[in-house]
């Protein structure tokens, strides 16, 4: 517990406020009552707090029209009746977005397939040209395709590696 005067005063006010509300245990209540008997300033603080509390009785208590209950219950019944369609609307929106997403994925896959089918694969070109590539060095030395064809016609090449004459 702090000994500063302001902390003591704050604690006293809290205890007095709780005393007004009947929130103190028996021991604390007894302590406050003894202090109230002995100290006029404490009694003044209590009076001020009680006055502030009593002034709240001046605040108006609202009342509602007799039809308010019926209006409220009807409004809730209506809101509950609309709830399934609201949920359905939310679900259908979710479904629409899911379908849109799925459609986009399918379109992308189809596009990829079409491009892959139309565009020749680089490996296929390499495979087709493999015999030429393998004999590129001798072809370069020969210098002319026509010359090679004449050599082939004279059956100067022997063996399967002679190629297709290109």
């Amino acid at each position: 517990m702090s000994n500063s005067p302001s902390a003591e005063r704050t604690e006293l006010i809290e205890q007095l406020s709780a005393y007004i509300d009947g929130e103190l245990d028996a021991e604390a209540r007894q302590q406050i009552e003894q202090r109230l008997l002995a100290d006029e300033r404490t009694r003044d603080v209590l009076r001020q707090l009680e006055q502030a509390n009593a002034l709240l009785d001046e605040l108006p208590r609202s009342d509602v029209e007799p039809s308010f209950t019926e209006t409220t219950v009807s409004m809730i019944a209506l809101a509950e009746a609309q709830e399934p369609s609201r949920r359905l609307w939310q679900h259908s929106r979710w479904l629409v977005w899911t379908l849109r997403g799925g459609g986009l994925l399918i379109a992308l896959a189809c596009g990829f397939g079409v491009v892959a089918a139309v565009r020749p694969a680089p490996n296929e070109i390499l495979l087709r040209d493999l015999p030429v590539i393998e004999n590129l060095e001798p072809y370069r030395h020969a210098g002319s395709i026509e010359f090679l064809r004449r050599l082939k016609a004279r059956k100067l090449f022997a063996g399967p590696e002679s190629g297709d004459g290109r």
Partner: protein
Amino acid sequence: MLEVRDDNAAAFEELVLRYQSRLVTVLGHLVGAHDLAEDLTQEVFLRVYRARKKYVPGSKFSTWLFTIANNVASNARRTQSRRREVQPASAGSSSTSNFSIDQVALAASGQMPARQLDKAEMRDVVHQAMTVLNDRQRLALLLNKFEGMSYADIGVTMDLSPQAVKSLLSRARVQLREVLEPYLEQGKRPEVDHP
């Protein structure tokens, strides 16, 4: 509430009937306008109805109800302050005051009995003084005064410890007393800056 939880429509209607005025009163003092308080009360009952299956038997219904009301009021105040930011010129003291122009005119004409005027004026002054308190202080005072809630129940409703409620209430009373002192001592109306 247990019957409401078991979908008894008549029990729900009875519950609305029993709590509607209490809710409108507390919400009215929290948001400062009767019409809005009625709308918010309906919103609270709608939430209660939708959450009825989650109600735990044995827990105090009023604390559960006012916890929902506190959330609804907080949302409404946030919306109000956003609107005030957008339309600062439209803000005025008329919505927060119960002391109407008609009453002032009637009093000036001498047709209103002095005692009635005192009562109406006092009500208006206290109402004005309440606007000085912060939202938590105001709610704690209202639950304590109008609902007769214990510190423990106010704590459950506002998600505070009983000790925090004790401090909150004492500070609120001191502040209220300070604001009202000029009126009580010299009949001067408190100077309140409307938010």
